[in-house]
């Protein structure tokens, strides 16, 4: 089993881990002191050298994104994305509730590097405890001089506030989040222009997931070479993996990128419950294509998962045992996407609903010959032609379940019940 000294979750087990006193007692805000004495370009260079890639799902190189921010704009913004809501994902909840100051410090360093004086933290509406703790954490950071005017005598100013989301998965998409911050419906914007040019209120905006920002203080404190020494060729640093479903010990496990999916499931999460056999795994949240049981030796990294037709996504692993009906699993995930489509693009709005309906009738023994090809045809008509990546994401449950388990779907069509669980009896 990989022995790994926690980086992002090093404080989360401590009593009162959310308090500024706890954070300061464990070396908190020391990296910010160092960073505020550096030149902004130096920090961007360090983040580039670290190889840090975004943890919100897309995996874009963070330092490159920072470099896109215009140097000469008079007003710039950092927007923090904590609208975690994809089935299987619960890593942000842990950081939000238990270690807000690690993110505030990361935002402070990022804002200084790109020259932004205003930061907005967008937190999922359901994270009531986390929101309460963030409001307190920001107030404490102001009181200690880590936010406000002339931070730590550097001459740099930064204001920060929390905005509460209100229940819309799509607001995890960066431009939908910006719309929501502006008080509008969370309809994603057409890109380009990217937020680095035209973001919140039309100003250049750096948008990051909180796990990405939580890496920043450690990169400054321990150096980009240390960070880049963790992980694989193209996926650097520590990662929080959320494990749920049919495992003995569901939970968050912080491990180096590149750890095998098998190790996470069988060693860290304790293996499957009730001595059952593994059937399928979703490696990176509901939007990532599922894997079959014989693929779990894959290293959990951006490039290795891509090579076998899936994605790292948010690193949220859903484990399914042999009793799981794959039609039902795909139907349930498709219902989520049909429910969460913002409705702006026709292929997503109507296609997500059609996929859900067809999967539901197959599951209930009312499928028709031709339904499986129809699922693939509809998926083809959605993938890649919507404003935001949700179109490409929502076809993955049905398409990947069919790829690995087509005979099980055909059994449903022929015998009108499930070979795995007998339903509908």
């Amino acid at each position, binding site marked *: 089993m990989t022995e790994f000294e926690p980086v992002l979750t090093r404080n989360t087990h401590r009593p009162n881990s959310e308090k500024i006193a706890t954070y300061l007692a464990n070396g908190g805000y020391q990296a910010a002191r160092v960073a505020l004495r550096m030149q902004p370009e130096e920090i961007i260079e360090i983040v580039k050298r670290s190889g840090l890639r975004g943890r919100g799902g897309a995996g874009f190189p963070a330092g490159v994104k920072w470099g896109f921010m215009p140097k000469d704009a008079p007003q710039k913004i950092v927007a923090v994305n904590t609208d975690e809501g994809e089935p299987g994902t619960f890593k*942000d909840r842990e950081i939000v509730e238990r270690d807000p100051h690690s993110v505030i410090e990361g935002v402070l360093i990022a804002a200084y590097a790109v020259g932004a004086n205003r930061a907005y933290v967008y937190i999922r509406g359901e994270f009531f405890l986390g929101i309460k703790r963030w409001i307190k954490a920001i107030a404490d950071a102001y009181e200690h001089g880590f936010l406000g005017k002339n931070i730590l005598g550097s001459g740099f100013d930064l204001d920060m506030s929390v905005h509460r989301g209100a229940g819309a998965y799509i607001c995890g998409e960066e431009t939908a989040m910006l719309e929501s911050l502006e008080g509008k419906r969370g309809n994603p914007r057409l890109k380009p222009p990217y937020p680095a040019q035209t973001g919140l209120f039309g100003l250049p905006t750096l948008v990051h997931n909180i796990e990405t920002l939580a890496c920043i203080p450690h990169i400054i404190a321990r150096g980009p070479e240390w960070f880049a020494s963790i992980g694989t060729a193209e996926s650097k640093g520590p990662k929080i993996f959320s494990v749920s479903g049919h495992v003995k010990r569901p939970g968050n496990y912080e491990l180096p990128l590149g750890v095998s999916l098998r190790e996470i499931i069988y060693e860290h999460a304790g293996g499957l419950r009730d001595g059952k056999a593994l059937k399928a795994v*979703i490696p990176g949240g509901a939007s990532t294509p599922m894997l079959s049981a014989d693929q779990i030796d894959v290293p959990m990294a951006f490039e290795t998962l891509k090579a076998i037709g899936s994605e790292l996504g948010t690193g949220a692993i859903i484990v399914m045992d042999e009793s799981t009906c794959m039609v039902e699993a795909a139907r349930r995930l498709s219902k989520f996407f049909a429910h969460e489509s913002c409705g702006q693009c026709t292929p997503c709005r109507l296609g997500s609903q059609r996929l859900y309906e067809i999967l539901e009738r197959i599951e209930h023994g009312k499928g028709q010959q031709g339904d499986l090809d129809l699922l693939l045809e509809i998926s083809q008509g959605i993938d890649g032609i919507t404003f935001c990546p949700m179109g490409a994401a929502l076809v993955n449950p049905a398409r990947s379940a069919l790829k690995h388990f087509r005979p099980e779907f055909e059994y449903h069509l022929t015998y009108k019940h499930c070979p795995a669980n007998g339903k509908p009896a």
Partner: protein
Amino acid sequence: MNQANKSSPPAIEDPRKRAMLLAALYLAQEQHGWLSPEAIRRVADRLELSTGQVMSTASFYTMFKLEPQGKYHIQVCEGLSCYLVDGAETIIDHIARRLKIKPGQTTPDGRFTLEVVQCLAACDLAPALKVNDELYGHMTLESIDTLLEKLERS
């Protein structure tokens, strides 16, 4: 358009004013328990927006309630991870039978609303549910009965 009371929109709208809208809707909902037409109109007036603009936002988000809710708003997750560990319908059906309402309905005494929701980002605590802003994890039919009894007495 029921905007007869507004003459013409300001030449340049301050986008930051509308940015207050979600927070204002939360405040209004806290005061009234739901977003009544009156609450929508008051929010619109305070932020100098049209009621159409306010409705456009309010109707998009599932946490804004456009009809009265029970004192206890029970939200049960039907996501994949909750379903896999005996949650979702097992729990939803149990609560529905006990409260004698269907998902989406409120008990006649106005105490309980039952709602089926998508992922609560609590898959490690599956099966999970929320009552108002409080999260409850690892639910069993027994622990649900205990919780409901406590809420019924309070």
